[in-house]
């Protein structure tokens, strides 16, 4: 189930451009859902163990800006700039994570330290306005002047190409989630989440386990940032870093379901579908109405449906099948 469902989704979505005449608008929505689904999955890889980071905007911002800055100012291809950005994100995760876990900063405190971290990244981006364009954001120099495809610059005019890239990344993300779910690391982290001392007493290196999952999650999120920057060909501090994005990540995961494999993806589909359908239904006449409903729904979700949409559905399905087998 947790292996075949994602593969089936990839096959179905991957055949869409060939089988049907899907338009650019719907392709665009699909690509965004997949990229955000990947980012949200990356967050939930660590978030499900009670490591609630409000700082993932930092990693996404480092990925997005790292690759764009290296390309614009040094002409470095994203194939080289990407790994550098990932390394920087990993270092940043290490610098925040190691002392946090070493000194047992958990819960509220961990959330607020990571919140400070994401604001540091956003403010540095804004403050370095001479190289980053500040709040106005920046556009990667185009490599599409000569043709619609530039593999070396990782820029593609056709949305179909991006669908396949996003599908691959997303599949990778949910498979990493599955691998973590089936690993010893999961048991170590669940034990540490319950009681750190007890976990340590049975031989779990708590600091190391937490650091490992944080590094994994940070690098994945930064990858999402790179893909987002290369796809949108525009980055701005508010759209890839800072508190806004960090909270958006956490809330989409909560809405979809934090503890199930495809929950974050459902969160991405749900939030994007919500904002798009509201936009289509009422247009731009009332700005931020989607935010209003979104905020309200989040409160309701956390109060009445903390398992999220998919988590709740799966729990219901399981209860029903138990009833059936019980007879």
């Amino acid at each position, binding site marked *: 189930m947790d292996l075949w469902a994602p593969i089936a989704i990839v096959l179905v979505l991957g055949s869409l451009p060939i089988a049907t005449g899907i338009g650019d608008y719907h392709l665009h929505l699909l690509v965004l859902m997949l990229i955000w689904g990947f980012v949200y999955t990356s967050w939930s890889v660590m978030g499900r163990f009670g490591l609630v980071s409000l700082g993932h905007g930092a990693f996404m911002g480092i990925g997005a800006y790292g690759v764009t800055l290296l390309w614009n100012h040094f002409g470095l291809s994203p194939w080289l700039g990407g790994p550098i950005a990932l390394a920087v994100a990993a270092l940043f995760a290490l610098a925040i994570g190691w002392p946090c876990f070493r000194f047992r*900063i958990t819960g*509220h405190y961990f*959330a607020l330290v990571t919140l400070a971290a994401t604001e540091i990244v956003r403010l540095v981006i804004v403050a370095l306005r001479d190289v980053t364009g500040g709040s106005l954001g920046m556009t990667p120099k185009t490599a599409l002047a000569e043709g619609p495809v530039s593999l070396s610059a990782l820029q593609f005019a056709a949305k179909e190409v991006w669908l396949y890239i996003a599908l691959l990344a997303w599949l990778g993300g949910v498979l990493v989630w599955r691998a973590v779910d089936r690993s010893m690391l999961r048991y170590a982290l669940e034990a540490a989440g319950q009681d750190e001392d007890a976990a340590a007493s049975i031989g779990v290196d708590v600091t190391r386990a937490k650091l490992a999952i944080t590094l994994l999650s940070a690098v994945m999120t930064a990858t999402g940032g790179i893909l987002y920057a290369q796809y949108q060909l525009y980055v701005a501090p508010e759209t890839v870093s800072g508190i806004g994005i960090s*909270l958006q990540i956490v809330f989409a995961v909560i809405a979809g379901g934090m503890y199930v494999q495809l929950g974050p993806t459902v969160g991405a589909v749900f939030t994007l579908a919500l904002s798009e359908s509201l936009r289509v239904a009422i247009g731009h006449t*009332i700005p*931020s109405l989607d935010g209003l409903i979104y*905020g309200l729904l989040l*409160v309701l979700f956390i109060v009445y449906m903390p398992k999220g949409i998919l988590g709740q559905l799966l729990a219901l399905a399981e209860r029903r099948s138990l009833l059936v087998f019980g007879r």
Partner: protein
Amino acid sequence: MGAIFDVFLLEAVLNGLLFGGVLALLALGLNLIFGVIDVVWICYAELVMLGMYTVYFLFTVYGVPLLAAFAAAILLVAVLGALLHFLVIRPVLASEPINQLLVTGGVLFFLQAAATVAFGIDFRNLGLSLPSLVIGEIFLPWSRILAALTALTAMLGVWLFLRRSFLGTAIRAISQDRQIMPLMGVDPNRLYLLTSAIGGGLAGLGACLLVLQYDVHPAIGLSFGPITFMICVMGGLGNLVGGFVAAFLFAQFISVGGYFFHVEWGYVMAFVFFVVVMFWRPQGLFAPGGR
């Protein structure tokens, strides 16, 4: 050359002190709520934003006298604080602590979007410009001086309320032991509601002082919210005195850092300082040797 440099630095330090007073007021409200109810209102600065809008509309559109507009804003935000507790916090009091943090984050989105829907994204200000106090070459805006003095007075008031009054004693007691107080015949829910209203009222007062100095717009909460949390955490969540000192430290980083570099770098340095302090003293700067 050297003399002028020093004067401007002194001005930055003094402005930082004045800014610290307002930050300390905001931190006090948040800290009080955390200390008593054990919940962090991520949306605290959004309540401040609503208070600022209240003053703006009452004063500039409806022509209400400024002081009456202030009183209305304080009252309104106090009611909002109580409502926030009643409608949002109470249902999740028993669930995981992190849910309480996140649920108020949902409220943050809601209030920010609601303000955008209702008021648009324009920057608005009262159109008042108070003069500056000039001492030699130092210019200190009266709006800041008044704000800092009012904040200090209000903090003194809260302090006396907590120390001297019966209700204040009950609030302090419940923050020390949540389980035992109900056994003493105290209804914690009423105290929580009262504390939320006081916290909201302090946010409303903060709003009155901030609207004198800054333009109000729907995202203004994001410029004050994060620093307020950092201050509270750095002082030790729930530690009122710690928050007070931390507010002035933070304000100095922002003001003096902004003087030497650019104002964003002041914030960056303040946040880095916060992260370093967290690693050095995770329970806050003024924690009595860990818990």
